[in-house]
């Protein structure tokens, strides 16, 4: 079937285009034939999730454009295929930003793909997640119905929160067509401090400081040094800087450090060894997993390299209130996400069927049976 990708090159047009109807038709056709679809935005995150058999491609890359942006209302509405770069440039022009500082993982990254993966960057523990930012969505369900949930306002409790449910669902519940997001002003001042520290103290400090009224906006520990980013008004940042101490990184170097970390271009991420992500209760002391570890999110996100015993790793993460994901590399034909308890999996299977009865949308990308 030649619906999108094969007909239009990614740079086919510089103009914004609404392809909702074409995309809807494509899903309806494949629904009618029970033909599985693989949803693709910019193709920058194909490494993520489970490997699935080849199937029809539904390309969202051409469905782009900002529909409504009201800086004073702190929201933006845009088509899901809009590039993350274009979105961030537009926000920066108005002195605003996406609060969750998403990783791009490539210049072609789209906002739809970012939300479908549920990726958040260094600011996540202090400014909220990708999901927290969502105000509303227009989606296509598995039958090809266009449905709108949520809106452009902060408060909206009419109906179940379907739009936030889409975040992190890897497109298995619906094709994201349009999203409305909460945006925030960029801080006046940002300073990054660095201090040599042992891992136990680093985790303690990150959590101790998070319990104080400090303008923290990111923290990371690379095995030797603790990096602390402060963002806010100049006076608040200066006061916190004096209080926390440490060496101040030059601004350009600091900005580069956080981008490198966010985009996984830091030396830690180099090479082909499998990359594991552990999400745990943030104050969890350093875990006995060797020295190939990078800690982010105030202790809440821990990266690990190398082939590991998945079962043991998952058990360890669960003991500390969290879960483990095979983020990159390794065997992606098996389950890459933390196994769900049987009742939880059964519930999620029923939910999948509620949105996508014939299981045509990105099926198997998240779990083999979703």
């Amino acid at each position, binding site marked *: 079937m030649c619906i999108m990708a094969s007909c239009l090159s990614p740079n086919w047009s510089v103009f914004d285009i609404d392809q909702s109807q074409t995309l809807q038709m494509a899903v309806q056709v494949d629904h009618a034939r029970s033909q599985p679809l693989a949803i693709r935005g910019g193709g920058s995150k194909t490494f993520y999730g489970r490997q699935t058999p080849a199937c029809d491609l539904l390309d969202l890359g051409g469905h782009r454009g900002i529909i409504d942006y009201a800086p*004073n*209302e*702190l*929201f933006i509405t845009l088509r899901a295929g809009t590039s993350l770069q274009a979105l961030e440039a537009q926000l920066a022009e108005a002195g605003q930003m996406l609060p969750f500082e998403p990783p791009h993982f490539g210049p072609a990254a789209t906002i739809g793909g970012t939300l479908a993966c549920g990726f958040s960057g260094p600011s996540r523990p202090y400014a909220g*997640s990708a999901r*927290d930012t969502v105000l509303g969505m227009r989606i296509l369900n598995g039958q090809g*119905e266009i*449905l*709108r*949930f949520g*809106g*452009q*306002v*902060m*408060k*909206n*409790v*009419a*109906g*179940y*929160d*379907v739009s*936030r*449910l889409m*975040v*992190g*669902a890897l497109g298995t519940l619906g094709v994201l067509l349009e999203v409305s997001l909460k945006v*925030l002003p960029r801080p*006046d001042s940002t300073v990054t401090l660095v201090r040599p520290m042992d891992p136990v103290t680093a985790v303690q400090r990150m959590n101790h400081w998070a*319990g*104080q*009224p*400090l303008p923290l906006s990111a923290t990371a520990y690379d095995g030797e040094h603790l990096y602390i980013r402060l963002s*806010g*008004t100049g*006076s*608040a940042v*200066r*006061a*916190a800087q004096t209080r926390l101490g440490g060496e101040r990184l030059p601004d350009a170097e600091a900005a580069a450090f956080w981008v490198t970390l966010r985009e996984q271009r830091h030396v830690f991420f180099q090479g082909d060894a499998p990359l594991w992500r552990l*999400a745990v*209760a943030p*104050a969890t002391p350093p875990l006995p997993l060797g020295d190939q570890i990078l800690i982010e*999110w105030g202790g809440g*996100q821990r990266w690990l390299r190398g082939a590991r015993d998945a079962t043991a790793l998952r058990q360890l993460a669960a003991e500390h209130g*969290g*879960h483990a*994901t095979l983020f990159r590399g390794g065997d992606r034909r098996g389950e890459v*996400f933390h196994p*769900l308890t049987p*009742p939880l999996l059964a*519930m*999620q299977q*029923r*939910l999948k*069927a*509620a949105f996508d009865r014939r299981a045509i949308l990105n099926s198997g990308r*998240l*779990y083999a049976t*979703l």
Partner: protein
Amino acid sequence: MPASPDRTALLVELQAALSADAVLRSAEDLRPYECDGLSVLRELPLCVVLPTDREGVQAVLQICQRHGVAVVPRGAGTGLSGGARPIRDAVLLSLARLHHIIAIDRENRTARVQPGVRNLAISEAARPLGLYYAPDPSSQIACSIGGNVAENSGGVHCLKYGLTVHNLLELDVLTATGETLRIGSQALDSPGYDLLALMTGSEGLLGVVTECTVRLLPVPEHVLVLLAAFSSVEAAAESVSAIIAAGIIPAGLEMMDRLAIEAAEDFVHAGYPRDAAAILLCELDGPAVELEELVREVETLLQRYGARAIRIAEDAATRLLLWKGRKAAFPAVGRLAPDYYCMDGTIPRQRLAEVLGRITAWSAEYGLRVANVFHAGDGNLHPLILYDANAEGQLHAAEEFGRRILELCVAVGGSVTGEHGVGVEKLDSMCVQFNAAELAQLHRIKHAFDPEGRLNPGKAVPSLHRCAELGAMHVHHGQLPFPELERF
């Protein structure tokens, strides 16, 4: 739902499973549960059960499952949309006796609590550690965290600190069949679908929360409140936009119109300027050095947009006095007329002047006064329609007026409910906000959790049948063709 459950056998089983005082069945005992905060709608349930622990809740759900009886969960009963309103043939499940704070984790900054714990009690317990629970609905002294999860409650600080959904980490949930689900995690995310988002605000239709972990935040170093008076609501609204455009996110931003100001002033004497067309309350929090800068900036902006009198409250006593008028606005307005109908729509702030203009015109048309209280930071408008239920036709007029306001909210890009929920009150308005395919999708979600439809049936999401009938109603120029349908 079966029409006539075997009531006696059901009660015997419930009594056997719970303690003797945990099953209420006499009309006298049921009376306090006949409504929630939406007191116009009253009904006595089949019985009220008051389990004290998770096992008790599970037993109730399993027994009701066996008997095919519906269950209506209830927290503190402070909800304003009838979400906890009893159903005659259903068991009312009160979570009030699950009221223990299980643990406060200082290092991870979380509180693990049972659903019946009062919202404010969490912050009180965390305070010695310099922490608090951010969402603060106006009923926080009485409302329970389980109810907050069911309604996705906000509060005056949600522009900066978010709603309940932004401050939750983990839920223990029992489904309609009594099955246990642990949703979320102690980490910042969890694998699979984001059921935490789906459960939050689901109005007790998807599951019963038996325990939850909430995120605690550090208590801000310093707080101050500015009060500004304006000669027009437009100017007040523009000043709000200007503050946000300047890159300032206040902790709270509240607006009141003239009738609300007068009512509040008569009631609590907060010192509000009676001659103002609108007042704005702006709360700033943060480090003292930051507030020194911000307060000057905000003051300048307010003046630029025509604020006439600006008062700044730095000490706790003055701050509380300024907030007192706003927090007492509902009861204060309640003194102006025998009855009032509280609406809860959201609108993009830039449409405020237009929406208020239409409300003023309709107010004249219906001959009913309206006081407006507005969470200006997040676009949540509470028009309070004054009426007298004993005066011929006024209740009907107030309801119709209210429905038109909500339809207008949807038309300008907002929502029929910002924070009070749909319950039974806004079922008709849901037909305006969602089309048939969307409602069908919501019903399929419900079905995935509760295939028999026994958990809080008839609430939150209207049947397609109901909406179809309502569509017919519109065709008939407002004459109600189905008088047996609830109209509220």
